[in-house]
């Protein structure tokens, strides 16, 4: 009985690199991390991280290309057949997310050379890069794996390394923020394990595809509903859904600039992906969305998040903290799309995952430039930035416009779809509230614009170095480019939304 579950086709004669891309996606950064520790030299470790990140980006693009050409890829780790062994699965939903993580990594590393040298003590550089690569490994692993328990393991790899990255911030409050995040994050992760455990108890499987099939048979057991509840709460903690967002503002505000930029663009997005994976792929066929008010609950919390966090952002003096609160609000917009659970709504939510990553990644990278020249980015210090650091200030304005959702930037595309989805369902009030949320973001972005352009500079500052500006401006240019030509992002998002909603029928 047990002997039969051995490796299948273990003696394939031609092992090509291309057939192992899904494994390499995770293995490359995983192996690069200890290499950084062994090298013990900051410069060399940076080089290793750069090569690994570029390799990750290239792998992700190759995988996306294959998924779009041939459909989902299933990769059996160690050639153990799927329900027994761990399966890596790349489909229309997670392939674009892998590209997003890869792109952010490939931009963050060249950006970070100067920023890290400035913000982190020399002797800790190699450890920073090792931790950073582990974080990347975890995020990629969570996204690519098709095994529920493996998701937990990778989630904890990324979370533990995230706590370390945040604690490396220069401000001593970074330590308290990291501790708080550790407590909240571990509670979230433990809830996720309980959920996965209950699913395993009722179905006897951990494979995502297998879970989906067996839950469909079993009907509505109470343990399954409890599993869904634990998973939803745990993942909401990880993705910072209001009111479980309390760890986020301080964590992003006091983390090293490059860590804040990378995490804001990817970490919460991966948690959103997991919620979609469990909510739609696993539970989709068991009709949870019809029998439970899950959609309405997500909508209510998302709306509250948009309004409360945007208002809180208005009153922040530290601009990094302001944008961190804005992240909570933007996650609210993403969850609005998820809660509506219609093709248009989901497309809007998914495209906003990408668009918000671009805008917020750019904003935090540019704030890193401010940190480099002026210290902690408070509004007071940033007065007259438009004159002293013109490129940084201009980039911040465009990223800010994108957060508002001004036409011509990426934010407009996703907000347009969200409003459209609300109107499709006949919810005028929701459309109006989305506009109200955007108006609140006008207020806080205006505060930044006003200080940068309409005040006299207090402290003289030079423009940030080229390596940082170029990386940040690639993202800023992305904000405009994908705002004007949205066919690529919308195509991927609507394909992913379709694949999710198929499970519901």
């Amino acid at each position, binding site marked *: 009985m*047990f*002997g039969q579950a051995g490796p299948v086709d273990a003696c394939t004669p031609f092992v090509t690199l291309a057939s192992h891309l899904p494994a390499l996606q995770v293995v490359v950064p995983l192996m690069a991390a200890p290499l950084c520790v062994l090298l013990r030299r900051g410069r060399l470790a940076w080089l290793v991280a750069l090569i690994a990140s570029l390799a990750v980006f290239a792998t992700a693009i190759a995988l996306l290309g294959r998924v779009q050409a041939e459909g989902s890829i299933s990769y059996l780790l160690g050639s153990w057949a799927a329900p027994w062994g761990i399966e890596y699965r790349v489909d229309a939903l997670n392939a674009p997310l892998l590209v997003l993580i890869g792109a952010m990594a490939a931009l963050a590393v060249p950006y970070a050379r100067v920023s890290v040298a400035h913000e982190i003590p020399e002797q800790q550089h190699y450890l920073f890069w090792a931790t950073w690569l582990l974080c990347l490994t975890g995020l990629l692993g969570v996204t690519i794996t098709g095994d529920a*328990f493996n998701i*937990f*393991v990778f989630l*904890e790899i990324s979370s*533990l390394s995230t*706590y*370390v990255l945040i*604690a490396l911030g220069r401000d*001593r*409050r970074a*330590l*308290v923020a*990291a*501790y708080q995040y*550790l*407590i909240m994050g*571990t*509670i979230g*992760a*433990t809830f996720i*394990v*309980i959920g996965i*455990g209950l699913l*395993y*108890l009722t179905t006897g499987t951990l494979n995502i595809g297998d879970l989906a099939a067996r839950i469909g048979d079993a009907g509505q057991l109470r343990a399954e509903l409890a599993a869904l509840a634990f998973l939803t709460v745990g993942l909401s903690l990880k993705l910072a859904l209001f009111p479980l967002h309390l760890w986020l503002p301080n964590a992003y505000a006091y983390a090293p600039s490059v860590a804040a930029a990378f995490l804001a663009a990817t970490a919460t997005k991966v948690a959103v992906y997991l919620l979609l994976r469990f909510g739609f792929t696993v539970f989709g066929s068991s009709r949870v969305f019809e029998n439970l008010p899950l959609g309405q609950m997500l909508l209510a919390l998302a709306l509250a998040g948009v309004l409360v966090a945007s208002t809180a952002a208005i009153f922040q*003096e*530290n601009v990094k903290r302001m944008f961190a609160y804005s992240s909570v609000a933007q996650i609210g917009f993403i969850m609005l799309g998820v809660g509506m659970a219609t093709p248009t709504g989901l497309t809007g939510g998914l495209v906003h995952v990408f668009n918000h990553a671009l805008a917020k990644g750019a904003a935090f990278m540019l704030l890193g430039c401010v940190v480099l020249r002026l210290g*902690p980015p*408070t509004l007071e210090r940033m007065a007259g930035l438009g004159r002293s650091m013109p490129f940084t200030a201009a980039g911040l304005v465009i990223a800010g416009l994108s957060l508002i959702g001004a036409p011509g930037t990426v934010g407009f595309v996703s907000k347009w779809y969200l409003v459209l989805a609300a109107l499709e369902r006949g919810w005028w009030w929701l459309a109006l509230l989305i506009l109200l949320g955007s108006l609140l973001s006008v207020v806080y972005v205006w505060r930044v614009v006003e200080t940068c352009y309409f005040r006299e500079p207090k402290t003289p500052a030079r423009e940030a170095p080229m390596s940082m500006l170029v990386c940040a401006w690639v993202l800023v240019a992305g904000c405009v480019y994908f705002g004007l030509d949205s066919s690529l992002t919308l195509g991927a998002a609507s394909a992913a939304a379709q694949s999710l909603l198929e499970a519901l029928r």
Partner: protein
Amino acid sequence: MNLLGNVNYWMAMFLLVMGLYIVIARGNLVKKLIGLGIFQTSVYLIYISPGKIFGGTAPIIAEGFRTYSNPLPHVLILTAIVVGVATLALGLALVVRIHEAYGTIEEDELQLQDIDAP
């Protein structure tokens, strides 16, 4: 009967709620971590309990043994224990650093110290 039959789950749930309560109610950073440890450990019990089958042995194929306990939950929980140890170690390391930076590990005193920093 049913109540006694599920005693392992009752205990696990009791530990779960107790751990979570300690995390929320205590202001001392080390005590919070103790609560977190109890909270995580309770989940190990939830996983391990159903893997046990009365009269079952370790899943080694041999003459005379026909019932086996499910080994998978044990393996999963070994991984979870490793994660738990790592979390606890990192948490304690952070507490040491916080103590160095602030001179206290009480949450309310920490908040007071940073109240007027920019």
